[in-house]
């Protein structure tokens, strides 16, 4: 099991805002040879539970395979495009992840998240728009869940990586 935070995370509001409003984060997992592999992904932050959820299709399962082999991951929030935030901090989360081997297609309990994706990425609705696109893209809707619990959170006001991060939060 991945470690539970000892208490609710008490983060500055501007960091919480980044978790909520950034459209993507850069998620790194470790390949078999130890190389960190980084791809942009859509994160969902659950402040009350102190965890992130990332999902990936079984058509692109490498992230989940990597996590099952090595739980160490990171999420960098460094691209504010479309967030509506002015000069937000950039945030690095290092943590431990879990990726159960369960294929999820149901919307039960996931309506808010899918709604947010459709609001933020209107053209993504194309995948389910007719019989042909459903046939071609059905793999996209067969998802694996990746749960990430932060161990350390660092942030750089204004995104200035030239200076040491001014904020740091360590869990446990």
């Amino acid at each position: 099991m991945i470690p539970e935070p000892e208490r609710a995370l008490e983060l500055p509001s501007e960091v919480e805002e980044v978790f909520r409003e950034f459209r993507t984060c850069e998620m790194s997992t470790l390949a078999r040879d130890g190389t960190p592999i980084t791809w942009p992904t859509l994160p969902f932050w659950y402040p009350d539970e102190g965890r992130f959820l990332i999902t990936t299709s079984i058509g692109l399962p490498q992230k989940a395979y990597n996590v099952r082999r090595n739980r160490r991951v990171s999420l960098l929030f460094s691209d504010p495009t479309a967030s509506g935030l002015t000069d937000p901090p950039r945030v690095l989360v290092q943590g431990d992840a879990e990726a159960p081997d369960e294929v999820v297609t149901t919307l039960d309990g996931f309506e808010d998240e899918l709604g947010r994706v459709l609001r933020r990425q209107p053209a993504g609705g194309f995948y389910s728009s007719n019989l042909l696109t459903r046939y071609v893209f059905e793999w996209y809707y067969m998802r694996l869940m990746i749960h990430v619990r932060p161990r350390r959170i660092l942030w750089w006001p204004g995104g200035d990586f030239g200076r040491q991060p001014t904020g740091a939060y360590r869990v446990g």
Partner: protein
Amino acid sequence: MWDEIVEHLADFESAVLTGLDAEGYPYSVRCRPRPDPATRVLRVPLPDYIPIESGPASLLCHRHDENLWRLKSFLVRGTLRREDGACSLQPRRFVPAAGIGGPLGMVRFVLGSRRTAKRYLRRRGLSRPHIPWREINELKAQVRAEREWQAGLRG
């Protein structure tokens, strides 16, 4: 590989460098890598305090527009060397992703993902799961109605 990296890197203002810290966790920072044609490495100005160690590393370039569309991304896998305050990435592999390779690249990506998904299910003895298309499209219609209502308020 080198030419592809140089060509596509020129399309981005910055990139995400990821290496490992002393505890073996990935550590990422934004940086502005510069190709060095003489040595075929990417020079990365990296502040000394960044705890990324020499060793396996990768460089990601990606972007999207205001509607999370017009995606473009690629990854360079390689080896990072930090020496005397300088830092360079020796590329080992170029991994193209969204928006690279044109329509043919897109077709390859979709067909490859379909095959991988089928294999994932087959290896676990799972049948093709039901996708709740009706519920998905109901949610889509609800989001579209919200958007039209908001546009009406603005207009």
